[in-house]
C-alpha cells in the first residue's frame, strides 16, 4: 500500500474521532521519516500497526462524550437540513416505531422469562400443596389420595426439571439484552452516513 492510499483509508476510518486531522498528520510524518531513513514506501506503510489497531487505540483514549460530541457537532449541509425538515413526518414516525419495536422486544423477552420462572415456582408450590392435601384425602378416599400424591410428584418433578432451563433462558436473555444495547450504542459511535 502506498502512503497516500494508507492515509486515505486512515482518514476514512478516523473521521468520527475528534482532532483526527492531527493523527493523519502524525502518521504522514512517521511514514515520510521512515522513507527518508531508507525504508521503501510500501515497507514504511506495512511496518505500521493496522488501521483497526490505530482506530481502536484512538477510540480507547478518547472519552465517550467527546466522541458523541464530535459526531453531533459535525456540520450539516443545507440540503441535509432541508431533507431533515421535509422528511420529519417520515423519519420521526419511523424512529418512534423503531424505538417502540425495540422496547416491545425487551418487554416481551422480560415477560417470557418472568412467566417461565412463574411456571417453575407454581409447579413447585402447587406440587407441595397437593402433596399435603393428598394425606387428608387418603383418610376419606384412598384412590383419590393416591392420585393426588402421583400428581404432586409430577408437578414437583416438572419444576425440578424446568429450573435449569429457566435459569439458562434468563441468563441468555440478559446476555442478549446486553449485546443488543451494545449494538445500539455502537450505532452512535461507528462511522457511517449521517442522514
Amino acid at each position, binding site marked *: 500500500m502506498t502512503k497516500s492510499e494508507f492515509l486515505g483509508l486512515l482518514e476514512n476510518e478516523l473521521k468520527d474521532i475528534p482532532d483526527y486531522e492531527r493523527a493523519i*498528520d*502524525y502518521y504522514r*510524518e*512517521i511514514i*515520510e*521519516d*521512515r522513507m527518508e531513513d531508507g525504508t521503501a514506501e510500501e515497507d514504511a506503510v506495512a511496518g505500521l*500497526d493496522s488501521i483497526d489497531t*490505530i482506530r481502536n487505540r484512538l477510540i480507547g*483514549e478518547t472519552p465517550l462524550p467527546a466522541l458523541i460530541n464530535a459526531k453531533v457537532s459535525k456540520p450539516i449541509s443545507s440540503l441535509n437540513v432541508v431533507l431533515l425538515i421535509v422528511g420529519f413526518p417520515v423519519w420521526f414516525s419511523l424512529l418512534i416505531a423503531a424505538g417502540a419495536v425495540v422496547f416491545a422486544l425487551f418487554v416481551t423477552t422480560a415477560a417470557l422469562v418472568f412467566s417461565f420462572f412463574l411456571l417453575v415456582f407454581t409447579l413447585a408450590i402447587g406440587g407441595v400443596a397437593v402433596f399435603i392435601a393428598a394425606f387428608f384425602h387418603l383418610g376419606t378416599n384412598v384412590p383419590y389420595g393416591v392420585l393426588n400424591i402421583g400428581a404432586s410428584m409430577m408437578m414437583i418433578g416438572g419444576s425440578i426439571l424446568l429450573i435449569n432451563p429457566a435459569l439458562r433462558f434468563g441468563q441468555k436473555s440478559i446476555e442478549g439484552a446486553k449485546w443488543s444495547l451494545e449494538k445500539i450504542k455502537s450505532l452512535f459511535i461507528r462511522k457511517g452516513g449521517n442522514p
Partner: protein
Amino acid sequence: MDIQLKRGILEVCVLSALQKEDSYGYQIIKDVSPYVEISESTLYPILKRLEASECVTFYSVEYNSRLRKYYKITEKGEEKISEFLSDFKEMMAIYQFIKEDTSHDEI
C-alpha cells in the same frame, strides 16, 4: 507487564527522551524502543496525554519542504520524571522487602 504500569513507564520514557533534546515522533520511537516496546500507534496517544497534562508542548519546523512536529518537555514534565524516580526508589525498597521475604520462605 501490567498495562497501567507500562503506560506510566512509557510516558516517563518519552519525557526522558525529550529531556535530552526536543524530538519528533519517529526519533522518539527510535530512542525509546531499545528499552521498552513502543509502536507508532502507542506513541501518539501518549504524546496527546502528555500534551493535555501540560508536560510537553510542540512546535512545527520546516524540514525537507514539509512540516515536522517537534515536542519539547516543560517544567511540569521534568517534575513528572523526578516524581517517577523518587517513587521508583520506594518501589525498589518494597521490591527488596518482598524478595527477601520470598527467599526466606524458600529456605
